[in-house]
């Protein structure tokens, strides 16, 4: 089981490394969106600092939905998704390996993007660390949901808009908890509860996503 998973993981990593443009387009989209938010809200650094969490999370949400297509659509179009199933790889493993690789590939640009954002949004070191941990813990859930939305719309032609419509409601609880600020919270302490909630969310979403993903993959290849 683990051998098969490692094999799948290696395959996905190799494919993703070849498509280095994914990381570049993800980073560019992230920075461009930040720029647009700044223009929309205004250059007041205090206001931007107050709103940094929702800004970053909304940008992440949209960029993950948009980029997730690259991890699944190509495999579906060239038939390798179907081939993997015929070769006996379980659907859960296929989805899980894609999630892990997507997480690894998308987390790399964050080591550069989040410090840049912290300069633009005037974050202190505690806020920077807190945001980084938040991103690391919250993005797997975002990725899992986006993969499910992608699978649901993989056979639809105008899939992008539909993907946003059907999946947005599932992002709402996650966005509420990732962007919520505790009234007793200060920028001098890291909010541990938030991290625990994000881990909890991931543990809830993971089995639901794997189970529904398995059903969708079976339906896709019928």
């Amino acid at each position, binding site marked *: 089981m683990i051998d098969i998973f490692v094999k799948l993981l290696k395959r996905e990593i190799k494919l993703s490394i070849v498509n280095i443009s994914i990381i570049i387009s993800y980073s560019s989209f992230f920075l461009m969106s930040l720029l647009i938010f700044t223009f929309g809200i205004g250059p007041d650094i205090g206001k931007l600092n107050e709103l940094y969490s929702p800004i970053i999370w909304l940008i992440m949400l949209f960029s993950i939905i948009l980029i997730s297509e690259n991890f699944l659509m190509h495999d579906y179009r060239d038939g390798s998704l179907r081939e993997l199933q015929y070769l006996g790889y379980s659907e859960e493993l296929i989805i899980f390996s894609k999630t892990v690789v997507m997480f690894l590939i998308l987390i790399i640009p964050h080591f550069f993007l989040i410090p840049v954002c912290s300069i633009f949004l005037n974050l202190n070191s505690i806020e920077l660390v807190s945001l980084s941990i938040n991103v690391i813990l919250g993005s797997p859930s975002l990725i899992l949901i986006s993969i*499910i939305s992608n699978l*649901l*719309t993989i*056979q*639809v032609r*105008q899939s992008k808009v*539909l993907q946003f*419509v*059907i*999946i*947005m*409601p*599932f992002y*709402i*609880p996650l966005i509420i908890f990732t962007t919520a600020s505790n009234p007793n919270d200060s920028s001098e302490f890291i909010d541990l509860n938030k991290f625990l909630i994000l881990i909890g969310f991931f543990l809830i979403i993971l089995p*639901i996503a794997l189970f*529904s993903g398995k*059903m*969708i993959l079976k*339906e896709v290849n*019928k």
Partner: protein
Amino acid sequence: MIFKLANPNRFIRFSDRISPYLSYLFILLILYGLFLCFFKSPPDYLQGETVRIMYIHVPCAWFSLMFYSSIAICSFFSLIFKHTLADIISRALAPLGASLTLATLITGSIWGKPTWGTWWVWDARLTSELVLLFLYIGIIILSNSFENKTKGDKYAAILSLVGIVNLPIIKWSVDWWNTLHQPASISKFSSPSIDPSMLTPLIVMTFALLFFSLQVTLIRIKSEILQRKIDIIRSTELS
């Protein structure tokens, strides 16, 4: 009984038989309910006449949740037992559920203006009801996005099953969070905190809406079954 009705032809015969009775019951109950709402039910000591919106708002809200649960149950039957009629029922219920959710939001908004002083607040109950509307819209769009209806139904079934996590949030949001929306006045586990003079019209209106919804659902199911039959005939003629 349920498995007997799972046959589409038998279901059409059954629906033809009960449809007139549902219509009669609906007309009787809605007339009686409206009479009670406008002439027998007293105005609220605090909210005045605006409380009468409750007789539309509350049944719509109950059925918006009930229809989603029904869709989820049908989706379960569709995915596990692969039954076409379950898909057809889900397809028939989704627009009705979406309309009732929209009606809940609109009537709630109209009720909210004089009582809370605002059309909308980002309160847990209101927001979760809005999320429910988006879920309904997602299911409707997804099921209609495929040329092959069966495929669309299956995807919509998966989506509706995943979306069921929203139902407990809507139901208990008023208990879990401090919301502007009041907690439930009618509960299974305790006696209702609403006066009988208001409870009676509310129950009558709820049954009126139930019979109306059943009637509309039966019509939609019947037309969907007939549409599928036409599609099959057309496709066999073409091939």
